[in-house]
């Protein structure tokens, strides 16, 4: 006996077909798609690598720093500011989903098309790195039309890293737990959890910067360094500190720190960003 044809294909009432077609037409937001695709890239190595400590460190380093570094490389070619507001996007994501079920700023807010650090005065340039939320939709539209293809990955990668960070226990995470986020599966990835805590500190500092709060960012970075004196994101922390000092008005301190950073990490993917901040 042949299987019955599907209702949506025509043998049902008009309303039944409309209902099923409506169900078929629903899609996750673009931000969710980005996150899961990046997750799919990261998970096999990160998860399995957690079985072997050495490899695990490398794996998550690849997940975290690699994405950040990749973000710089990509953003550098596209004139984008990567050190912006992925965490802000994460925090506002659920609210955005509530108000716009077909849109998502999850990865989009990490993108600043058309904004090049060299084109703006120093302080304004940094303050502007926190994009106002209403602009998220416009940015997302540009992404969807292909304007920010590579940067989409950057935003999604940062979001994925941040999302992993959101799953670390509150005791070690500086971020508030994301309400309702499942923890069981990812908490079984011990290395990701450990690294996630570090990522969360970095993200928190970046969030503070995005919110125009350099003092909070500096305090967060100091706390990060105290907690993780051998932290895996030292270069990222330093780059953020340069930005925070500039935003806070400490131009001399920022330039000195930048010089120190560039001397130690002349080939770092972050170097270009640091140079552009201190030598507009």
């Amino acid at each position, binding site marked *: 006996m042949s*299987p*019955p*044809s*599907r*209702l*949506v*294909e025509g043998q049902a*009432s008009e*309303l*039944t077909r*409309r*209902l*099923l*077609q*409506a*169900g*078929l*037409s*629903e*899609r*996750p*937001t673009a931000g*969710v*798609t*980005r996150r*899961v*695709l*990046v*997750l*799919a*890239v990261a*998970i*096999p*190595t990160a998860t*399995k*690598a957690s079985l*072997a400590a*050495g*490899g*695990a460190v490398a*794996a998550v380093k*690849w997940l975290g720093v690699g994405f950040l570094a*990749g973000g710089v490389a*990509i953003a550098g070619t596209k004139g984008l500011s990567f050190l912006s507001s992925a965490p802000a996007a994460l925090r506002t994501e*659920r609210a955005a*989903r509530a108000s716009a*079920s077909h849109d998502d700023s999850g990865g989009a807010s990490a993108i600043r098309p058309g904004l090049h650090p060299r084109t703006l005065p120093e302080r304004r340039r940094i303050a502007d790195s926190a994009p106002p939320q209403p602009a998220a939709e416009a940015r997302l539209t540009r992404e969807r039309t*292909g304007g920010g*293809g*590579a940067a*989409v*990955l950057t935003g999604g990668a940062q979001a994925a890293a941040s*999302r992993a960070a959101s799953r670390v226990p509150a005791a070690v995470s500086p971020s508030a737990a994301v309400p*309702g*986020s*499942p923890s*069981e*599966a*990812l908490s079984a*990835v011990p290395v990701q959890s450990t690294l996630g805590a570090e990522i969360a500190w970095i993200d928190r500092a970046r969030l503070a910067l995005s919110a125009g709060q350099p003092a909070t960012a500096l305090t967060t970075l100091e706390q990060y360094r105290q907690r993780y004196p051998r932290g895996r994101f030292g270069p990222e922390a330093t780059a953020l500190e340069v930005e925070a000092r500039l935003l806070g008005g400490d131009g001399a301190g920022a330039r000195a720190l930048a010089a120190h950073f560039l001397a130690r990490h002349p080939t770092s993917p972050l170097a270009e960003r640091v140079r552009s901040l201190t030598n507009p």
Partner: protein
Amino acid sequence: MPEEGHPQALARSRVADRPLAAEVLSVSDRQPVPKVAGVSGPPAAKRLLELVTAHHVGVWRFLRRLGLNRADADDALQETIVIVARRLGEVALGSERSFFYGAALRVAHGAWRRRARRAEVDDDSLSGVVGVDPPQDALLEQRQMRELLDALLRRMPEELRTVFVLYEIEGFTMAEIARMLSLRPGTVASRLRRGRADFEQRVARLEGSSRHEGGQP
């Protein structure tokens, strides 16, 4: 991974994800993937990425039709991917899609247990959920139709709903559903038959009440 009888809409949605997937693949190829003894590297990653690229929309939609709200479906999808990633090595070639959906079903069960159901369905009335007359705005109509669809599905016994959604919306064959749910083919056929009857009866009742409210005989 053939998609027998699968609606064209889903195929279109997959095409839309390809550029991004290619981009992710491209970048992942450029990034140094760490080598760990005894751990498969890029091939496993690409297998997972291909699976997720092709089916994450469907799995997410499946989670939604199982009653999860959008935020919970987002989380459940990520949780599912982590589970699939862990066990992908055990999954036979060609069975990845079924495994993905099966894992999602188990995650949804967990979500149900963790969270009380949003609204207990204590009556059979669908009045007030949404009207059946199409509004002028197409997007609004889609949203309202989905709300109505979910309201109807919530009223369906879970074992019927799962089979109904997998067959009618996600395009699985009955044989695939039987393997996925570890059921006998006859059981799947029975559940599908009962699920369809349940759904169509409720739709007919809804249409009847709409006609009545509209003054039609």
